Protein backbone atom coordinates (compact mmCIF):
# COMPACT_ATOMS: atom_id res chain seq x y z
CA UNK A 1 0.00 0.00 0.00
CA UNK A 2 0.84 3.64 -0.03
CA UNK A 3 2.71 5.36 2.74
CA UNK A 4 2.84 9.12 2.78
CA UNK A 5 4.88 11.18 5.18
CA UNK A 6 5.70 14.78 5.78
CA UNK A 7 9.26 15.77 6.60
CA UNK A 8 8.62 18.25 9.39
CA UNK A 9 5.77 18.39 11.90
CA UNK A 10 6.16 22.16 12.30
CA UNK A 11 7.41 24.96 10.08
CA UNK A 12 7.79 28.55 11.30
CA UNK A 13 8.20 31.41 8.83
CA UNK A 14 8.05 35.19 8.82
CA UNK A 15 5.18 36.96 7.11
CA UNK A 16 6.15 37.71 3.53
CA UNK A 17 8.63 34.83 3.22
CA UNK A 18 8.09 31.89 0.92
CA UNK A 19 7.17 28.59 2.60
CA UNK A 20 8.07 25.13 1.40
CA UNK A 21 6.35 22.07 2.85
CA UNK A 22 7.73 18.70 1.83
CA UNK A 23 6.18 15.27 1.52
CA UNK A 24 7.52 11.84 0.56
CA UNK A 25 5.58 8.83 -0.67
CA UNK A 26 6.45 5.17 -0.94
CA UNK A 27 4.42 3.73 -3.82
CA UNK A 28 6.03 4.49 -7.16
CA UNK A 29 2.73 3.55 -8.84
CA UNK A 30 0.92 6.48 -7.20
CA UNK A 31 -0.34 8.80 -9.88
CA UNK A 32 -2.41 11.44 -8.12
CA UNK A 33 -1.44 13.77 -5.28
CA UNK A 34 -3.40 16.35 -3.34
CA UNK A 35 -2.55 19.07 -0.85
CA UNK A 36 -5.06 20.08 1.82
CA UNK A 37 -5.09 22.94 4.32
CA UNK A 38 -6.77 22.50 7.69
CA UNK A 39 -7.41 25.57 9.81
CA UNK A 40 -8.18 25.27 13.49
CA UNK A 41 -11.72 24.02 14.08
CA UNK A 42 -12.35 23.24 10.42
CA UNK A 43 -12.12 20.30 8.09
CA UNK A 44 -9.36 19.88 5.49
CA UNK A 45 -9.79 22.16 2.50
CA UNK A 46 -8.54 21.25 -0.96
CA UNK A 47 -5.69 23.51 -2.15
CA UNK A 48 -4.19 21.99 -5.27
CA UNK A 49 -3.63 18.63 -6.92
CA UNK A 50 -1.21 17.18 -9.43
CA UNK A 51 -1.17 14.08 -11.58
CA UNK A 52 1.93 12.04 -12.27
CA UNK A 53 2.16 13.16 -15.89
CA UNK A 54 3.11 16.62 -14.60
CA UNK A 55 6.14 17.92 -12.69
CA UNK A 56 4.72 21.23 -11.62
CA UNK A 57 1.38 22.90 -11.19
CA UNK A 58 0.63 26.43 -10.08
CA UNK A 59 -2.35 27.97 -8.37
CA UNK A 60 -2.94 31.26 -6.67
CA UNK A 61 0.26 31.85 -4.62
CA UNK A 62 0.83 28.10 -4.42
CA UNK A 63 2.95 25.74 -6.50
CA UNK A 64 3.21 22.00 -6.21
CA UNK A 65 6.33 20.23 -7.46
CA UNK A 66 6.44 16.50 -8.07
CA UNK A 67 9.71 14.56 -8.34
CA UNK A 68 8.82 11.00 -9.30
CA UNK A 69 12.43 9.89 -9.33
CA UNK A 70 12.83 10.35 -5.59
CA UNK A 71 9.10 10.07 -4.81
CA UNK A 72 8.85 13.52 -3.32
CA UNK A 73 6.45 16.39 -3.62
CA UNK A 74 6.45 19.86 -2.18
CA UNK A 75 4.01 22.70 -1.67
CA UNK A 76 5.40 26.18 -2.07
CA UNK A 77 3.47 29.16 -0.75
CA UNK A 78 4.61 32.55 -1.99
CA UNK A 79 4.57 35.63 0.24
CA UNK A 80 3.19 33.74 3.22
CA UNK A 81 0.48 35.54 5.13
CA UNK A 82 -0.89 35.07 8.68
CA UNK A 83 -4.02 33.54 7.12
CA UNK A 84 -1.85 30.74 5.77
CA UNK A 85 -1.24 29.47 9.31
CA UNK A 86 -2.75 25.98 9.36
CA UNK A 87 -1.91 22.30 9.18
CA UNK A 88 -1.07 21.13 5.66
CA UNK A 89 -1.60 17.54 4.53
CA UNK A 90 -0.41 15.76 1.44
CA UNK A 91 -2.25 12.70 0.13
CA UNK A 92 -1.38 10.24 -2.61
CA UNK A 93 -3.27 7.54 -4.47
CA UNK A 94 -3.16 5.30 -7.48
CA UNK A 95 -6.01 5.69 -9.92
CA UNK A 96 -9.37 5.81 -8.24
CA UNK A 97 -8.26 4.24 -5.00
CA UNK A 98 -8.70 5.88 -1.65
CA UNK A 99 -5.91 8.39 -0.97
CA UNK A 100 -3.47 7.88 1.88
CA UNK A 101 -2.84 10.95 4.01
CA UNK A 102 0.36 12.14 5.61
CA UNK A 103 0.31 13.29 9.23
CA UNK A 104 0.46 16.98 8.54
CA UNK A 105 2.85 19.90 8.89
CA UNK A 106 1.79 22.80 11.08
CA UNK A 107 2.72 26.09 9.39
CA UNK A 108 3.16 28.99 11.80
CA UNK A 109 3.43 32.46 10.29
CA UNK A 110 4.96 35.16 12.47
CA UNK A 111 3.96 38.78 11.78
Amino acid sequence: GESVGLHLPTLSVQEGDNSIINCAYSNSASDYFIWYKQESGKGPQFIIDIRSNMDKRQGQRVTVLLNKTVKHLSLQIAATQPGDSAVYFCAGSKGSYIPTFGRGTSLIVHP
Partner: protein
Amino acid sequence: DVKVTQSSRYLVKRTGEKVFLECVQDMDHENMFWYRQDPGLGLRLIYFSYDVKMKEKGDIPEGYSVSREKKERFSLILESASTNQTSMYLCASRPGTGGYNQPQHFGDGTRLSIL
Protein backbone atom coordinates in the same frame (compact mmCIF):
# COMPACT_ATOMS: atom_id res chain seq x y z
CA ASP B 1 -19.12 25.11 -4.00
CA VAL B 2 -19.49 21.65 -2.53
CA LYS B 3 -21.07 21.63 0.89
CA VAL B 4 -20.51 18.74 3.26
CA THR B 5 -22.47 19.22 6.46
CA GLN B 6 -21.96 17.27 9.64
CA SER B 7 -24.92 17.42 11.98
CA SER B 8 -23.03 18.24 15.17
CA ARG B 9 -19.81 20.15 15.85
CA TYR B 10 -19.51 18.82 19.40
CA LEU B 11 -21.08 15.77 20.98
CA VAL B 12 -20.73 14.25 24.44
CA LYS B 13 -21.96 10.71 25.06
CA ARG B 14 -21.59 8.03 27.70
CA THR B 15 -19.83 4.69 27.49
CA GLY B 16 -22.11 2.01 26.07
CA GLU B 17 -24.44 4.39 24.26
CA LYS B 18 -25.28 3.95 20.61
CA VAL B 19 -24.09 7.07 18.79
CA PHE B 20 -25.13 8.34 15.37
CA LEU B 21 -23.03 10.83 13.40
CA GLU B 22 -24.73 12.25 10.34
CA CYS B 23 -23.25 13.70 7.17
CA VAL B 24 -25.01 15.27 4.20
CA GLN B 25 -23.52 16.49 0.91
CA ASP B 26 -25.29 18.62 -1.64
CA MET B 27 -23.36 17.86 -4.84
CA ASP B 28 -24.76 14.47 -5.85
CA HIS B 29 -21.41 12.80 -5.16
CA GLU B 30 -21.29 9.03 -5.44
CA ASN B 31 -18.45 8.46 -2.97
CA MET B 32 -18.60 9.27 0.74
CA PHE B 33 -16.11 8.62 3.53
CA TRP B 34 -15.75 8.64 7.31
CA TYR B 35 -12.39 9.36 8.94
CA ARG B 36 -11.23 9.89 12.46
CA GLN B 37 -8.44 12.33 13.22
CA ASP B 38 -6.23 11.97 16.27
CA PRO B 39 -3.10 13.92 17.26
CA GLY B 40 0.01 12.31 15.84
CA LEU B 41 -1.97 9.75 13.83
CA GLY B 42 -3.36 11.87 11.03
CA LEU B 43 -6.53 10.87 9.19
CA ARG B 44 -7.54 7.24 9.39
CA LEU B 45 -10.27 5.80 7.20
CA ILE B 46 -13.11 4.07 9.03
CA TYR B 47 -15.60 3.27 6.25
CA PHE B 48 -16.43 4.46 2.78
CA SER B 49 -19.27 4.07 0.34
CA TYR B 50 -19.07 4.10 -3.45
CA ASP B 51 -22.82 4.55 -3.88
CA VAL B 52 -26.20 4.13 -2.23
CA LYS B 53 -26.47 1.00 -0.06
CA MET B 54 -22.81 0.18 -0.74
CA LYS B 55 -20.16 0.19 1.98
CA GLU B 56 -16.58 -0.88 2.35
CA LYS B 57 -14.40 -1.20 5.42
CA GLY B 58 -11.50 1.15 5.75
CA ASP B 59 -8.42 0.77 7.93
CA ILE B 60 -10.11 0.90 11.36
CA PRO B 61 -13.74 -0.31 11.09
CA GLU B 62 -13.89 -2.13 14.43
CA GLY B 63 -16.60 -0.76 16.70
CA TYR B 64 -18.25 1.19 13.89
CA SER B 65 -20.91 0.62 11.27
CA VAL B 66 -22.35 2.84 8.53
CA SER B 67 -25.56 3.40 6.63
CA ARG B 68 -26.10 4.88 3.16
CA GLU B 69 -29.81 4.76 2.35
CA LYS B 70 -29.80 7.94 0.27
CA LYS B 71 -27.10 9.29 -1.99
CA GLU B 72 -26.67 12.54 -0.09
CA ARG B 73 -26.48 11.07 3.41
CA PHE B 74 -23.86 8.86 5.05
CA SER B 75 -24.23 7.93 8.71
CA LEU B 76 -21.57 6.62 11.06
CA ILE B 77 -22.78 4.50 13.97
CA LEU B 78 -20.89 3.65 17.11
CA GLU B 79 -22.68 0.52 18.24
CA SER B 80 -21.56 0.74 21.88
CA ALA B 81 -19.41 3.79 22.48
CA SER B 82 -16.13 3.41 24.33
CA THR B 83 -13.70 6.00 25.66
CA ASN B 84 -11.11 5.12 23.00
CA GLN B 85 -13.56 6.38 20.39
CA THR B 86 -13.18 9.92 21.69
CA SER B 87 -11.91 11.73 18.62
CA MET B 88 -12.55 14.20 15.81
CA TYR B 89 -14.69 12.58 13.10
CA LEU B 90 -14.53 13.90 9.56
CA CYS B 91 -16.89 13.14 6.72
CA ALA B 92 -15.90 13.63 3.07
CA SER B 93 -17.44 13.19 -0.35
CA ARG B 94 -16.08 12.86 -3.87
CA PRO B 95 -17.57 12.45 -7.34
CA GLY B 96 -17.50 9.00 -8.90
CA THR B 97 -14.05 8.87 -10.38
CA GLY B 98 -14.68 7.52 -13.88
CA GLY B 99 -11.03 7.61 -14.80
CA TYR B 100 -8.81 10.24 -13.24
CA ASN B 101 -9.04 10.81 -9.55
CA GLN B 102 -10.62 13.84 -7.93
CA PRO B 103 -10.16 15.48 -4.53
CA GLN B 104 -12.36 14.77 -1.55
CA HIS B 105 -14.41 17.55 0.02
CA PHE B 106 -14.57 17.54 3.81
CA GLY B 107 -17.05 18.68 6.43
CA ASP B 108 -15.88 20.66 9.45
CA GLY B 109 -15.89 17.64 11.72
CA THR B 110 -17.66 16.40 14.82
CA ARG B 111 -15.63 16.41 18.02
CA LEU B 112 -16.98 13.45 19.96
CA SER B 113 -16.23 12.86 23.63
CA ILE B 114 -17.14 9.58 25.28
CA LEU B 115 -17.29 9.77 29.07
